[in-house]
């Protein structure tokens, strides 16, 4: 017994069962209901776009780590997989493959690896890719396929405007007239509208939120603060002039608000760490989203709002500190 060589390390000697990998795959599981529903709505195109996005994100991460940074590739940690899925969820289902690959390169290359890889990127990589594509390929990125069910072909889909697009181009018409041609609330809830691949089905995204909360991947603060702020701000506008402004429910169910609030703004690396900072961050995203949607020239503003608030995260983390034990009482 005395010859046994013992490992000596400092405490603690036990660890919680959570790892970075498990958290990332938790996000993937939470994204699955939305993925399944988008295949049901947009057909095979959704699978093609998602697969290409995921494969190219993982491949680019591998190539950059292996040949450019000469690091040990860490593609199995699941974070490139999450970025790939989220990028695909943020583009139309009929986007040409070449554009998706460019988006993946920008997301991983510029959004993530140029800052040093996982843990050091200030902006959400998938959104960096998405916004780059939106600015570079405005026509392709805003030609939204109309949901026609599972049998829709890849590039021959019928396209149409998104509900927010209708609102943007209403001109002098009253909101109520415009909304007559928009989908009903139940259609919005089940994702029967034009839009990005993974942003439309509110119910699937909410199932995703429940999974994230159940698996303790995220806390409720960021999604709730974004949705609440958006609701309150659009509610004030709507109460002030219902003929000019759409109601809060319409704003919450359309565009990428739920996808952004649940999956994009909650990215660990680019979001704040303390509940108080999360509230400020979430409120900022909500307010900016509404300003861009209602007063800006883009119909949709969630991506921009999140990226802008990402930039404030280091300041929030620096100045909003946890309350220390025994801090207020001075030692006398």
């Amino acid at each position, binding site marked *: 017994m005395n010859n046994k060589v*013992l490992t000596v390390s*400092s*405490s603690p000697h036990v660890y919680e069962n959570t*790892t*970075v990998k498990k958290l990332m795959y938790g996000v993937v599981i939470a994204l699955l209901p939305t993925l399944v529903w988008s295949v049901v709505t947009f057909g095979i195109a959704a699978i093609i776009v998602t697969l290409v996005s995921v494969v190219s994100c993982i491949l680019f991460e591998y190539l950059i780590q292996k040949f450019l940074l000469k690091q040990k590739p860490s593609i199995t940690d699941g974070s490139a997989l999450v970025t790939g899925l989220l990028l695909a969820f943020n583009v139309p289902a009929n986007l040409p493959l070449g554009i998706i690959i460019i988006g993946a390169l920008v997301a991983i290359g510029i959004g993530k690896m140029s800052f040093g890889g996982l843990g050091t990127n200030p902006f959400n990589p998938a959104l960096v890719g998405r916004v780059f594509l939106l600015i570079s390929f405005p026509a392709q990125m805003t030609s939204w396929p109309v949901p026609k069910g599972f049998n829709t072909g890849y590039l021959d889909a019928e396209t149409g405007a998104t509900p927010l697009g209708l609102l943007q181009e209403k001109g002098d018409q009253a909101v109520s007239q415009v909304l007559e041609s928009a989908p009903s609330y139940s259609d919005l809830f089940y994702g029967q509208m034009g839009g990005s691949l993974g942003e439309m089905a509110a119910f699937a995204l909410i199932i995703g939120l429940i999974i994230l909360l159940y698996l303790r991947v995220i806390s409720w603060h960021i999604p709730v603060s974004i949705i609440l702020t958006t609701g309150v701000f659009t509610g004030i506008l709507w109460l002030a002039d219902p003929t000019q402004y759409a109601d809060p429910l319409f704003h919450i169910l359309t565009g990428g608000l739920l996808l952004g609030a649940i999956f994009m703004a909650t990215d660990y690396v680019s979001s704040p760490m303390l509940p108080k900072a999360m509230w400020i961050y979430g409120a900022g995203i909500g307010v900016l989203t509404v300003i861009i949607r209602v007063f800006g020239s883009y119909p949709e503003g969630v991506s921009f709002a999140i990226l802008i608030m990402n930039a404030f995260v280091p300041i929030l983390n620096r100045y909003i500190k946890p309350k*220390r*034990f*025994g*801090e207020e009482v001075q*030692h006398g």
Partner: protein
Amino acid sequence: MLKTFPRGGVHPAENKFTADKAIEKPGLPKQVIIPIAQHIGAPATPVVKKKDQVKAGDLLAEGQGFVSANIHSSVSGTVAKIDQVIDSTGFRRPCVIINVEGDEWADGIDTSPDLITDFSLSSEEIQKKVLASGIVGLGGGTFPSHVKLSVPEGKQLDTLVINGVECEPYLTCDHRVMLERAEEMLVGVKLLMKGQGVDKALIGIENNKADAIAHLEHLTKDDPSIEIYGLKVKYPQGGEKQLIKALLDREVPSGGLPLDVGVVVHNVSTALAVYEAIQKNKPLVDRVVTVTGNSLSNPTNLLVRIGTPVKDLIEAAGGLPEDTGKVVNGGPMMGKALKTLDAPVVKGTSGILVIPEKQARREAEAHCIRCARCVDACPMGLEPYLLKPLAEMERYEELEENAVLDCMECGSCSFTCPARLPLLDYIRLGKSHVNQIIRNRKQK
């Protein structure tokens, strides 16, 4: 609503599978190794020499200065030598090594099991007796108990808190003491109340020990001065500051002591030691140790003489499993890994935990993803994710500003980190540097 502390904390798997095992007395070891430094403060100075005959309870080494403690022989026999031996700290330190012969106790020590309840001693006499008996905090902190008993001028005490939390996973020694030695322990609590000069004691116990709570509530139902509180299970509730916050909602100031909020905290096993010292004239020479681990064939609670080699305890618990990778002195959250199984049981040894090879080594580190789990877990309201790189980059001023010295090294941050970052390792390193800088500053 059960009480607990509000901020931070984690829930490690409890694994308290020795909770139902009654305290056993193993046979005496052939040799004991008794370190002269088993406490916080100055080491004691040996008063015996080679070939001296000693009895159990005889003084071996005398405490030096105020913050120090006497060391007594735990066995009868001959002093073989005084030598440098690797003890539970992992360093070679002076120890008195005694070859055991028979089991004779020093004169005046009552080894009978009779319960004695004699409260005639004054509080000064209680303090003197505790000092003479070498009693230190048995929860693992090993702070000399007589120091806590002598309250400095100008500090007002109103409450004695007795720590029966035992929040470390696996350990059950305090639990067994509260079940099997409750009457004696409660006499110890009364003596401590008298020694501290307070007329109220609160005993805090986590509610995974419902039998102990019920037992103590039954025994104290006619005594309004002692209150028993069940607490919601959460690590590190056994930390003094967390326990005081949970029981009394008082917050010990940063850098301060429980005294600053009128409280002093003693462990249940310490209370038992105080009982034995005062009513039985028996110095601190043995303690209950939980010998445990998922791979042990017979995990158990043992009443062990101080200085018994750890290997003897593991033999008593069924022998060392083939796949053992690590043996810890204490619990899995704050215990120290032993270098050798020849190291002796000391006053602060609450448990011996055997960990299989598979779990003994750390997993590979990943990147910090700013998930904030360490910030949520820190019971002191610190930001471990920030302290680690500051310590790594030797930015000690910023470390001090970020209150690194408030850290009590409970390990909740490292425990919870999904990237398996050695947060506490770097924070410990940073703390020692900041402490050094503060000492230098004071000297100038």
